């Protein structure tokens, strides 16, 4: 059994050397690698979380912009409608004014025509009066009166000569 003891001792020393060497050469680096790996995973998770957050943010922003645009659009439509109604009113007012002006013009024309007809009637009346006078005087003058008339007129003419 002696040899077996030294061998066991030798084995134990050998084993501890190997373990020591391994732990130095293998264990630590492997642990380091595992550590790095877990660190990387943790970072990856963090980045993913950040990206997710950013994505959520963008979605949020997009929604708000859409809402803004909708608001703008509604505003523009409202303005256009207001302008359209304004224009319509202006056009209607214009048309009304034109119609009134035409009506006034026609009325003035009619008044004018009435005045002209009246004037013509007066003129015709005056002509008729003269014709009547001619006839009446012609009938009223007999020989004696006519001779007397000639004498009176002659006197006037001689004065004017």
């Amino acid at each position, binding site marked *: 059994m002696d040899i077996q003891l030294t061998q066991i001792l030798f084995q134990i020393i050998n084993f501890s050397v190997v373990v020591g060497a391994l732990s130095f050469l293998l264990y630590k680096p492997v642990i380091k690698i595992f550590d790095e790996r877990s660190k990387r995973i943790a970072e990856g998770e963090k980045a993913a979380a950040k990206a997710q957050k950013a994505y959520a943010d963008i979605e949020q922003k997009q929604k708000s912009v859409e809402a803004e645009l909708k608001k703008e659009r509604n505003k523009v439509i409202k303005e256009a409608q207001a302008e359209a109604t304004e224009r319509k009113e202006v056009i209607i007012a214009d048309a009304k004014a034109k119609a009134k002006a035409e009506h006034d013009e026609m009325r003035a024309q009619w008044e*004018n025509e009435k*005045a*002209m007809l*009246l*004037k013509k*009637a*007066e003129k015709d*009346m*005056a002509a008729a*009066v003269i014709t009547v006078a001619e006839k009446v005087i012609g009938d009223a003058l007999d020989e004696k009166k006519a001779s007397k008339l000639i004498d009176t*007129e002659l006197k*006037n*003419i001689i004065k*004017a000569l």
Partner: protein
Amino acid sequence: MKKNTQQEFTTSITQLISNLEVNTESEAVGTVLSFGDGVVSVTGLDDVQSGELIDLGENQYGLALNLEKKRTGIVVLGDASHLSAGQTVRRTGRILSVGVSDAILGRVVDALGREVDGKGDLPVDKYMLLEKRAPGIMPRQSVSVPLQTGIKAVDAMIPIGRGQRELIIGDRSTGKTAVALGTILNQADQNVQCVYVCIGQKRSSLAQTIQILEDRGAMSYTTIVSATASSSAAEQFLAPYTGQAIAEYFLEKGKDVLIIFDDLTKHAQAYREISLLLRRPSGREAYPGDVFYLHSRLLERACRLNEKNGGGSVTALPIIETQANDVSAYIPTNVISITDGQIYLESDLFNAGMKPAINVGLSVSRVGSSAQRKAMKQVAGTMKLDLAQFRELQAFAQFSSDLDEKTKSVLDRGEHVNAILKQGWDTPLKMEEQVVVIFAAVKGYLDKVAIDDIQKWEAEYLEYMHTSYPHIFESITSELKIVEKTEDDLKAAITSFNESHPNLVPVAQEE
């Protein structure tokens, strides 16, 4: 209401009759010897004056023109079909005159001043003599205020001033009346009264003209004297003098008046007819010897008066129709020597599509740039030169196809400037609009535009300027010249317009 009018009616007539007085007076009378072709030969009529109105009965009048020892030759104004030999005619003692008032604007009258448009009687404020001596030398003032015609070619290169006589001469259907009408349409806000005398034209043309003027609102400042082709020769002879008398009514009030005689060729022909019937000796082309005096005494009455005499002016635009472009015929040479310049319209240009068909080379305005605003002088100064060079090279270019760069550029520029002068007859442009358009043309901003697109370019350009750069127009109107700042603004405006309209101004392709 009816009874009232009837009563008023009878009372007014009775009053009138009771107010009448008839005394026995002496009257100078004459006896008709012969009557034919509108001329009445009369004996008696002692002491009749030349140019006196003679009462022929039935509300017809005649003009005593030939005074001889034993007879008087009277030209009938109108019809007088009731006259017969042995009938009595009387003197009125009145020299031919027309009754005028402010209400004559917007009306159509005949050669004796009687209304023919059926809008009611004309009130009379003053009687203006038809034959009157032209103002002497001292009351006149030189022409310095422009009369804007609204036509680019005229206002830029043949400018007309208030108080000038400018003849519009050309063959038939070259646009003479259109130039005159365009000028009337442009006077809407220029504070100028217009008189349009129509001598020997068709009634249908005159009706169309009146319709156009009414539609454009120009009748409110225009009077029309109508002696159309079916009026007697005496009425056609008197019509220009009637128009001039109406213009002088406003001249005495210190207003500016524009009078257009359309046209004096037919006026001379009517005078020839009367003179031959009165047996006056005839001269060249059978015209009487005093046909020059006929027009000179009419056109000399168009003048500009100095401040002491009211400061008004009468601008005359007589129109003469030539036959086969012959400006050396008798009547055209007469009138050319009387007027202060002419606008020469050619039928070749008209047929080639250049409207208004103004031959800029042969047209001249003797008043020239003293009747032009400084703004217009600045832009139009070089235009006449450019066009003259262009015309010189134009004939040359038709033969030679191999041209050097400089010639090509002159031809190109000339073509574009020529094209910008085309204008619709009823679209007058204000002075500031003309200035910006001509500025763009002479500074080369149009060189890339196709010739056929130039009208469109001009229309859109003016609209663009009115909406986006109205301050340029305001500056030109107020300063009457282009200041540096306005010039820079203008250049920027044209450039931005050209860039924003690539369909009209094609951008050169990248090589």
